[in-house]
């Protein structure tokens, strides 16, 4: 393993840690209707853009497990998992880049994050519906949560994508 590979991995892990620790944080001005940007998803999209599809999916599953661990209180039996949504989002992001549908710039990354945020929240809503929650309640909440989370996450995505892509490009040189 080369030194810059290790450096890249350490950088990725550190930025991931920062994103995870930012999840429970509610800074004034960063929330909309009590919903904060989904930093984990932003990190996942940034990471998956230039990776093989399988690695992206594995990362998605790992991040889903992390987010489950941070939110699931063990007293409840049936709680939707984040692994499915994040794995699909990561796989799709990796595929998008493979097909060269879009270039890697601020706008397209923000667009991908927007779409993936809606996808992730929709998959949670589908799981909730399957678990027998009342449909009208779930889909009313889904509208609010998916849109708010998508708007906030996509607007904040350059804040993470810019330094990370600069860092990885600097490593490649």
């Amino acid at each position, binding site marked *: 393993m080369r030194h810059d590979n290790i450096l890249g991995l350490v950088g990725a892990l550190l930025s991931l840690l920062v994103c995870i620790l930012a999840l*429970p944080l509610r800074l004034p001005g960063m929330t909309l209707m009590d919903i904060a940007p989904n930093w984990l998803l932003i990190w996942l999209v940034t990471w998956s853009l230039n990776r093989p599809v399988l690695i992206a999916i594995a990362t998605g*599953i790992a991040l889903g497990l992390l987010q489950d661990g941070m939110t699931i*209180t063990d007293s409840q039996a049936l709680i939707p998992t984040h692994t499915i949504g994040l794995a699909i989002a990561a796989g799709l992001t990796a595929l998008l880049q493979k097909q060269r549908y879009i270039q890697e710039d601020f706008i397209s990354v923000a667009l991908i994050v927007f779409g993936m945020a809606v996808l992730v929240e929709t998959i949670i809503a589908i799981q909730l519906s399957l678990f027998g929650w009342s449909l009208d309640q779930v889909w009313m909440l889904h509208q609010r949560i998916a849109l708010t989370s998508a708007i906030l996450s996509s607007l904040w995505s350059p804040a993470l994508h810019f330094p990370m892509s600069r860092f990885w490009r600097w490593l490649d040189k």
Partner: protein
Amino acid sequence: MQLIRNWWGRYSLQLILVGLGLGAAWTLKQTQAEVLVETYRMIAQPFQAEYSSRQILENAQVLELQYRITEIEQQNQNLRKLLNVKSLGTPEGIWSGVIGRSSDAWWQQLVINRGTNQGIKKGAIALASGGLAGRVTNVFSNSSRILLLSDPTAQVGVMISRTRNMGIMRGQEQNLGVLTFFERDPSVKPGDIVVTSPHSGLFPPGIPVGRVRSINLNRQPAPEAIIEFSVPLGQLEYVKILPFDPPE
């Protein structure tokens, strides 16, 4: 054989890393992400923000007192009828600061900076000015996680304090909850005060929860009421943790 060896030579490192990553994530999930929550607490410690929402909190305190008085009057009347009722003492609580809110838009949870080292146990209830805020669902060494009343999975057995009609209240992700009554025809009107029910297994009885905002008696299969929480759940800075052992 050569093929497999070549393949292994090319991909072994990636496979090992993927396996390590998945394993680490699984371990963290199994431990309820204790390491992450505790790290968050360590970092958040010096930045405890002081923002002013004094007015709302004071209003909530006045409301809480009104609710308490109504509840006490009601209890008094019942006591006169019954004469023999076990009195409930109010134990000392542990005050703790709120250091984080849930990490997912769908759930409503808090992270507080007190844990087993400060004597907090799972199942303890969280009070704030205004009444009930939630209960402790995960305890770590120096931090714990609280499930708020507004969480959609939080179900509280409650009672209309004026008429003793009972029901179950569910969170709605906002400062509102939905109360589903057990009876077909409950006597309830907007403005009625809602307290935790004596049949609740998760909360001690008689803690103020909120006030009835509107009622839908035609709702199937059971009538519903919209409850306004008395605690400003969106602006909690401190909560008081009262130990509570749920009767099994």
